[in-house]
């Protein structure tokens, strides 16, 4: 099976974890399709998307969250002897993976590169919204790990929404189609928060679970054992980025949970 990954970041811990998990299942990644920018490009993109105030707010929140709670990603990486801070270019070199640098994942060059390599499964490890031509380039499709149960919770910040609404957090592996989290569903893996989890550490746990859940589903696809459930319509309720007050409420509910 020819497997590719998308990426839009110079350093991509999730892609690093995915490559490791797939290799452990004898499913080597054929290539990484990367639309990464340099440091300056990253900063510019963040400023463009969030504005100065939004970027500072996000950095402050991240710093505040990082100072508290367990750090499951750090622990996991140490156990696996993985360096999650390494640039993806070095990860690819070490693993002998082809790295295709493209200007944007939306270009026809990106879709052509995927198609001409005979890719069966492309895995979303970053890149934002995908154009139809890229979705149609791999023969089986573009696979995604969604941080909540689908089809119930489609949208963004859905891990936090799960906590806020008191529903089982977890990861849904699904195919990406033209809608927002509307594609056919391969499976759901529940995520159990640890007693000392914060939203930040729970998110790290979700990143880890995403990598293993996607790798498991790719293995099932490779062995012809995957099953699919229908997705949903684009008119079903969608969950949008959480306002900081509701994020705080979710954090308080996570801290107060007793089960």
């Amino acid at each position, binding site marked *: 099976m020819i497997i590719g990954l998308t990426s839009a970041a110079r350093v991509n811990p999730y892609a690093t974890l995915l490559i490791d998990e797939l290799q452990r299942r004898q499913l080597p990644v054929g290539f990484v399709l990367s639309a990464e920018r340099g440091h300056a490009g990253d900063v510019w993109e963040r400023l463009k*998307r969030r504005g100065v105030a*939004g970027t500072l707010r996000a950095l402050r929140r991240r710093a505040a969250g990082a100072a508290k709670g367990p750090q499951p990603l750090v622990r996991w990486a140490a156990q696996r002897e993985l360096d999650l801070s390494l640039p993806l270019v070095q990860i690819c070199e070490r693993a002998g993976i082809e790295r295709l640098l493209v200007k944007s994942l939306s270009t026809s060059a990106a879709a052509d590169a995927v198609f001409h390599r005979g890719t069966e499964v492309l895995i979303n490890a970053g890149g934002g*919204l995908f154009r139809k031509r890229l979705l149609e380039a791999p023969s089986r499709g573009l696979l995604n790990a969604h941080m909540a149960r689908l089809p119930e919770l489609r949208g963004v910040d859905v891990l936090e929404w799960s906590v806020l*609404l008191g529903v089982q957090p977890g990861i849904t592996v699904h195919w990406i189609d033209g809608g927002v989290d509307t594609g056919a569903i391969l499976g759901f893996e529940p995520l159990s928060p640890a007693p000392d989890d914060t939203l930040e550490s729970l998110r790290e746990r979700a990143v880890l679970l995403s990598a293993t859940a996607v790798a498991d589903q790719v293995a099932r696809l490779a062995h012809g054992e995957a099953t699919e459930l229908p997705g949903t319509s684009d008119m079903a*309720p*969608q969950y*949008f980025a959480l306002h900081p007050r509701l994020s705080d409420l979710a954090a308080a509910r996570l801290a107060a949970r007793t089960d």
Partner: protein
Amino acid sequence: MPALLSRILGMLRIAASAGPWRVVLRDLLHRGEPLHEDEAHLRAAMDWLARAQDVAGCGGGLSAGYSFRRGWLPPYPETTGYIIPTFLRYGEHTGDDGWIQRAVRAGDWESEIQLAAGGVRGGQGINTEPVVFNTGQVILGWCALHRTTGHDKYLESATRAADWLLQVQDRDGAWRQNTYEDTPHTYHSRVAWPLLEVAAATGEARYRSAAAANLDWVIAQARPNGWVESMSFRCADDPYTHTIAYTYRGLLECGLQLQGDTGVSAMQLAQLGADRLLRRYELNKPDPHAEPWPLPATLNSRWQPSDEGSSCVPGNAQIALLWLRLAVITAQDQAASLRWTNSALKLLDQVKATQSLHSRHDGIRGGVPGSSPVWSWYLRLTYPNWAAKFLADALMETEAAL
């Protein structure tokens, strides 16, 4: 010549004052005012409304707003009427009886200037022509005062006004005479709502029937996508979010009070419209995680913006309030309720970012502009009293929703 002189005086007034310049510069640089706790923004908005009442100098009516060119505007009967419930609610919120007294003064003033036939005078200042929409909004104030004080004089004023509304209503339930440009408007759902309040207070079924007839007419103007025709002031224009919000709020409040098919349809249409507004807002941003751009000032029947460059700030506050009302009403469905609340909080932050809490200028401090940027079409360079009112209402409703 007088118009030219007035314009020159207006320009001189702006040039001589630092406050307006600071607002213009802020909007030129796309800088928002700093955000504070809701309580600080609420207090500032209420203090501004109190100043608007004090400067009007008519005993109880509130100045329509502060204009950079014309200064404080004449009192406005329509909005004074619907600010009465805001004063009453804030009085309850703070436990300060002074706000109840302000509401009483406003209600008494409305009764004093009520026309002999029962209608409420249209426009700013003391005019002679009654207007349907304005009459409905003042009824909301009188009914709220009647509930709070128990004084029958307010219900008498409200009943006289409601009787006049019934007199000028057409057989199909719409109002055509004594309306803006003598055309029917679907934002008159916000006139059906006060009729239901009078029906509830008096037990008279005819007010309820008149409200239901109007709602049936409004619902008949709806498209399958939730859009309702004739929501604008002028037939040829796309409506401002201000009048769109009026329409759906009227439908919502009527849906809560009316039994039967009409009530159910009104509620469903209000929820559909509110949901389309929420999607319009939340999906208009550069990135799924980014803060949405403020709603455009006007929308067309496909829910597309027809004016991308500006936002109608009172409309934004009203839409946030509509979502918060839905959050409270759907509280038993936590997911739905929190979805409404989430978007309302974001939109309200953008309204709060137009409100200066520390300006030394009395017309600006605590007030909310009509447009963002302040020089845009909807009430250019003006801080209308209804913008502060709807911000205050929304902030108080936030407390209920959370």
